[in-house]
């Protein structure tokens, strides 16, 4: 039985006030995340921060932008830079002290060159330049057969650089380092460290489409859309946990048309020409520098051998797109990818030539 009681009015008033506050709080719809987009490191940088509305965005953008520009100017392959000075000294053959900003990249590249049979070889800057990629807008003409033959006759390797602690000595006159295949990975790692120093616990650093996560937004995984390299829209979605990097190397990134042929920037050291057989190679790994370099290596390795080189580099999760639009991926990558359209998929184990169609 419901009976009126004088004290009930007081309760009603108090409860109404409390619930009104709840409702007003609900109306204050802060964005779940904040986004910062700016130009740095020669590309567009997109920072996602969780939770939204609590960070000093101006301070974060200023700090990241300044840091990325320092790295960009240090590692620039064709403008005056620490790397440029290093290249001059390497070619001269004398012993010199390596710039601290460059030495870690040289050490990393030497290790990877050995593990990839030379497919990943940042010492081939002269070859990259010959194809017209050492300028802001890549352009032809491509090198003719005679020039290409000369460049490939005795090409420099990372192992031609002798390291004596922090001292370096070049043993090949054509040594010219170009860290285009791994520099962004180092830069993304450094940016995440800087964000941590600034007190950011949950973020994505996305530099020109390649990215790495830190933390988790509200206890869930980060949702990443993967743009279709052959068309428009989204190819797939991938959920990333904390400290996971997603890097892609593709023939659509930098390049130009020459006499009806697409000339792209991933140059195969074996042929001296743009790599063939894959449109894009994507690597998911905890180390962004390795993910960056591995994506380049798989792209060069091509459709037959990419699983073999993924294994050699310790990459368990990788995905490649073939020119016919089909996709091949490692078994470990399968549960991480949700395709957004009908697509032919094959699972490739680490041995070359071993494939199985996915129903």
């Amino acid at each position: 039985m419901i009976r009126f009681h004088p004290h009930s009015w007081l309760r009603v008033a108090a409860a109404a006030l409390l619930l009104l506050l709840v409702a007003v709080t609900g109306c204050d719809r802060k964005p779940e995340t904040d986004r910062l987009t700016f130009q740095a490191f020669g590309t567009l940088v997109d920072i996602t921060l969780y939770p939204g509305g609590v960070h000093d965005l101006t301070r974060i953008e200023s700090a990241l932008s300044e840091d990325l520009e320092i790295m960009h100017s240090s590692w620039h392959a064709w403008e005056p830079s620490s790397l440029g000075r290093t290249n001059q000294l390497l070619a001269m053959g004398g012993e010199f002290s390596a710039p601290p900003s460059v030495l870690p990249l040289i050490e990393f590249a030497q290790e990877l060159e050995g593990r990839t049979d030379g497919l990943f070889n940042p010492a081939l800057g002269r070859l990259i330049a010959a194809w017209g990629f050492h300028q802001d807008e890549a352009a032809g003409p491509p090198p003719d057969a005679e020039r290409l033959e000369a460049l490939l006759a005795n090409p420099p390797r990372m192992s031609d650089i002798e390291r004596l602690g922090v001292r370096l000595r070049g043993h090949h006159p054509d040594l010219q380092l170009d860290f285009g295949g791994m520099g962004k990975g180092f830069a993304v790692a450094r940016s995440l460290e800087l964000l941590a120093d600034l007190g950011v616990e949950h973020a994505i650093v996305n530099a020109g489409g390649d990215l790495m996560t830190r933390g988790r937004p509200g206890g869930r995984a980060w949702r990443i859309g993967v743009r279709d390299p052959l068309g428009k829209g989204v190819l797939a979605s991938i959920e990333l946990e904390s400290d996971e990097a997603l890097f892609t190397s593709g023939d659509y990134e930098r390049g130009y048309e020459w006499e009806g042929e697409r000339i792209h920037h991933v140059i195969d050291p074996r042929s001296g020409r743009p790599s063939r057989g894959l449109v894009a190679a994507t690597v998911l790994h905890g180390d962004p520098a390795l993910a960056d370099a591995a994506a380049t290596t798989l792209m060069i390795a091509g459709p037959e051998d990419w699983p073999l080189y993924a294994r050699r580099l310790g990459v368990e999760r990788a995905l490649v797109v073939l020119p016919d639009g089909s996709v091949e991926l490692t078994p470990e990558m399968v549960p991480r990818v949700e395709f957004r359209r009908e697509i032919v998929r094959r699972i490739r184990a680490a041995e070359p030539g071993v494939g199985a169609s996915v129903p």
Partner: protein
Amino acid sequence: MMRSLRWGDAVVVALATALVTTSFALSYAPSAGSTHLVVTQAGMDPRHYPLNENRAIRLEGPAGVTEIEIQPGRARCLRSPGNQGICEAAGWLERPGDMAVSLPNRLVLQVRGARSDFDSMHY
């Protein structure tokens, strides 16, 4: 000892149900018509354009002019400097998260809404 439900208690229960439901709906339901185009250009504050009417936009950048076309519910990069046509190739941008990029002009076009499908785009 259990007491009988009083009139005021019933009102409290009804109010609580109604207001909490309304609050929840306001917090999490996507708001219709909130989709808009955000143009971010290096060195400038982001510009927001509603996707509710036909509109043509010309933006000056370091490499020339980027032309943007807006139609109800969508937008696209119509023309932009650069020899690869990457900005134009993105096609119509319709869903929150859809994005076109012009590196020569240092700008990003992105559709945003109350809630995007993705936290970031990989390309």
